[in-house]
């Protein structure tokens, strides 16, 4: 009778249809939200987490497997986001340790029931033990305590300041770094949030990447949307500067390019990259090597330049100062 009932329960469970929308949630519960504190993206109400969940849902609709989707998220956002650490490498021990503990514990329990012959002797036969502690033990404890004090004195460096925001507890989160994300992923996230000013930063990162790749076609549209989307001054300046370079480099319109870069410079004066690009346009587009050289040297006088940019500016300055044509 009992067996019949058990079989009945098992049959109902086994024939249950596979859970439908739960797949997205199951995937979402495995991935930590990169801007929160230890919350899974399925739980976190933060914007980034919601965008990542949208991406998961989109990929499920496209027919990708769970593992493919998780892999994409991890390559895009970084491997330490997996809340379920893999049973290999640095986290192998984490999985092995409980098994070892279970094994050791089972062995200890088993030993309790294996009475050794000596234990069958009456308790009185045991050698008498002095109730006072031997000096040896006291010295040993003292040495250990001293050693511990030294260890503790060095522990301060492991402390980590609490972030200023009110984020919840958990292992500390990392800042979201758009550089680690593929163009396609960023596109998907950006597309899912077409009118949202809060993702301007992400959209700019994407556009800048297209800009670096020379893919002006793609970059152009994104910069325009950023400018339409109540950008912060630095975001707008970033977009104006690169738009200015693109209209010159792509369409040969030097005057419009300079005008656009100047609008960026009004918002963020002394931006080294903008001044450099402006110099390039003046030199290459208008043939004015002297003005360009002045601009290049003002760029070099600013601090904190990227080494690569510095090289480029120095080469250009030497050429422009010598009155050469631009390369």
């Amino acid at each position, binding site marked *: 009778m*009992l067996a019949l*009932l058990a079989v*009945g*329960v098992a049959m*109902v*469970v086994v*024939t*249950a249809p596979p*859970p439908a929308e739960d797949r997205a949630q199951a995937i979402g*519960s*495995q991935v*930590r939200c990169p801007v929160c*504190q*230890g*919350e*899974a993206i*399925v*739980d*976190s*109400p933060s914007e980034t987490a919601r965008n990542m969940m949208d991406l998961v849902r989109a990929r499920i609709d496209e027919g990708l497997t769970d593992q493919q989707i998780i892999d994409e998220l991890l390559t895009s956002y970084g491997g*330490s*986001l*997996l*809340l*379920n*650490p893999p049973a290999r490498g*640095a*986290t192998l021990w*984490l999985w092995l*340790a*409980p098994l070892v*503990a*279970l094994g050791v*514990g*089972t062995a*200890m*329990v088993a030993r*309790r*029931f294996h*009475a050794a012959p000596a234990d069958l002797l009456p308790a009185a036969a045991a050698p008498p*033990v002095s109730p*006072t*502690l031997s000096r040896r*033990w006291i010295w040993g*404890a003292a040495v250990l*305590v001293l050693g511990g*004090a030294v*260890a503790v004195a060095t522990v*301060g460096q492991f*402390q*980590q*300041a*609490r972030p200023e*925001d*009110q984020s*919840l*507890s*958990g*292992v500390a*989160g990392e800042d979201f770094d758009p550089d680690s994300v593929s163009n396609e992923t960023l596109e998907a996230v950006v597309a899912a949030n077409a009118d949202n000013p809060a993702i301007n930063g992400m959209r700019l990162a994407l556009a800048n990447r297209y800009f670096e790749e020379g893919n002006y076609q793609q970059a152009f549209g994104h910069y325009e949307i950023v400018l339409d989307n109540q950008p912060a001054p630095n975001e707008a300046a970033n977009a104006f500067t690169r738009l200015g370079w693109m209209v010159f480099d792509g369409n040969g319109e030097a005057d419009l390019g300079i005008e656009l870069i100047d609008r960026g410079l009004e918002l963020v004066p002394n931006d080294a990259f903008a001044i450099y690009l402006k110099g390039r346009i003046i030199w290459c587009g208008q043939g004015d090597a002297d003005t360009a050289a002045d601009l290049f040297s003002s760029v070099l006088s600013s601090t904190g330049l990227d080494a690569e940019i510095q090289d480029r500016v120095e080469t250009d300055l030497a050429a422009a100062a010598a009155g050469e044509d631009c390369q």
Partner: protein
Amino acid sequence: MFAFAGLLGILIALGGSVALVWHGTRRRAEPSSLKVAARFVLIGGGVAFLALEAALLANDFTLEYVANHHSRDTPFPFNLATGWAALEGSIVLWGLVLAVFTWGVLRRYLREPSRLGAGAMAVMGAVGIFFFGLQLTVADPFRICVDAVANGCVASSPFPWAAAIAPPNGPGPNPLLQNHILMAVHPPMLYLGYVGLTVPFAYAISALALGQPGTDWLRLSRRSSLLAWTFLSMGIVLGAWWAYEVLSWGGYWAWDPVENASFMPWLIATAFLHSSLVQLRRQALQSWNFVLVITAFALTILGTFLTRSGTVASVHSFTQSAIGPVLLGFLFLVLVGSLTLFAARVPMLDRAARLETLVSREGGFLLNNLLLCVYAFVVVAGTLYPIVLEAVTGARVSVGEPFFNRLAVPLSFGLLLAMGVGPLLPWRQADPVAVADRLRLPVGIALFTGLIAAVTISRLGYVVLAVVIGTYVIAVAVTNLVERSAKSSAIRGEPLFAGVRRQLTSEPSFWAGQLSHCGVALTVIGLALAANLGLQTDVTMAPGDTVDFGGYELTYRSPFLFTEPNRRVQGATIAVADRAGNPVTELAPRANYFGADTSGITTPAVHSTWKGDLYLTLLNIDGEGILLRLNTSPGIWLLWMGGLTVGAGGIWSLSARRRTREPSLVA
């Protein structure tokens, strides 16, 4: 003035603690001197706590603690709760609770003076020296503000006579902590649990040092252990409830380091409550009980270190302060000191009876201990692993819910299975056939309930399994009660009801334990339902829009905005109707802005029924509409009910013990 009073209190308590150690370790302890010393600790701890609370009520911003954690606009009772909402204040509360428990140990000692009790008083005093010492040094709540800005203190002095410069107002406590009334209840509850575990630790150390590893220390400390365990259970449940009501993600337990910090000692304390019974009845597991008690106490210190030091970022880690290394040092001292003492005493231990067979009550307890300890090990390992790995190799990993769930779920089911067999096993040796016979009815009930649940609620494997095993545990308890009562009432010829009453009153601690088992079973069923059957979706709504969700029709009526002294509240009114369109209720999920904080703390709106909760969180609101997260949590009330039932079992056992003065255990 409050600073003088508070510091005086701390000094008195510190002096009392030193006197406790001095008198408690003397060969001939004087009960009267111990009493005076304990009274000093209690009065000192009380004065310090009251001085801090009075300073908060009086808006005395000359104190750095008040200036940085309080505001004139903080309403009652949050102004009182501010007394333990930040680091220094929480240590003051810790000291007071420790003083109260020390007083409890003293009363026990005065009733039954012994060297064991005096030694325990000395250990309580030593722990007191540490915590009151903290209040004088790295966690001084009575520092005077000597340089202030508009709403806070930027420099302070430890001397109460320093010339004070007070800010006109303060920033108020952490917004998350002044958003719900449970915040006033949950931390003191947890502290009573944490600090209460000091008492069995004190007796254990005293027993080891004196070379009296018998059952006396267990007998003397059992009541305190039970009390601490009960408070810890309630504190954990209330913490989960608080998270659910405040943190707006529809969850209650995230295996967050802070939650783990309270769960680790609970698991070990639970193991200890069971294994100490084996020693009391069978004189076995002597050394194991010492290990458990030392571990439980060390875990409370580890938990405090984890949450208060800033090693893990947390709502409970207030600021980076020197308290981290100090707590770690204390933890090290406790572990090394007590384990060395233990190792020195090992030759005296476990000469008593071995156990005959695993199929017996004590075998069940051993199985339960094995599972609970592995469980605690998993929680400790998962919590510490990322920290240690990063400190050693610099590599960052996340260990979160999926890891813990994968290991905790099978361990929990294993524990439930053990719970369903253990209580039916007699001590020493059980007859497997007879036990199987008695299991038939509960297993049948459980499978039948499982079948009904599978047909009516869900066919998900975890849900059905949880219902089957949970019902099985409850059914075992109930059928066991009925069978035993029926037997005794048949002999006496009285009605069954009288037999049940006789059973419950004659063995209250056993049946209280069974009640706690039922509470755990309910909790597991509630967890399985809420975690597996909950729905979640985000919707954008303009005023007037209606969506269908989880059997309800939700209509966004209108936004609202109002101002309270300590916060601005922005929210949306949502009309809730059932499928047929009959109005059910109106919910107002909201965002609260405290002081200068602009990010906003969301407060979810919850509609509870016996079937489950409808849970709305306001993610975004602007002129055009709202972004609303919708959750359902089916059966979540079972979780709260179950947790409180676990605690109720503890309270029942405590109150029954008081009346009967534990005659059965001595026998």
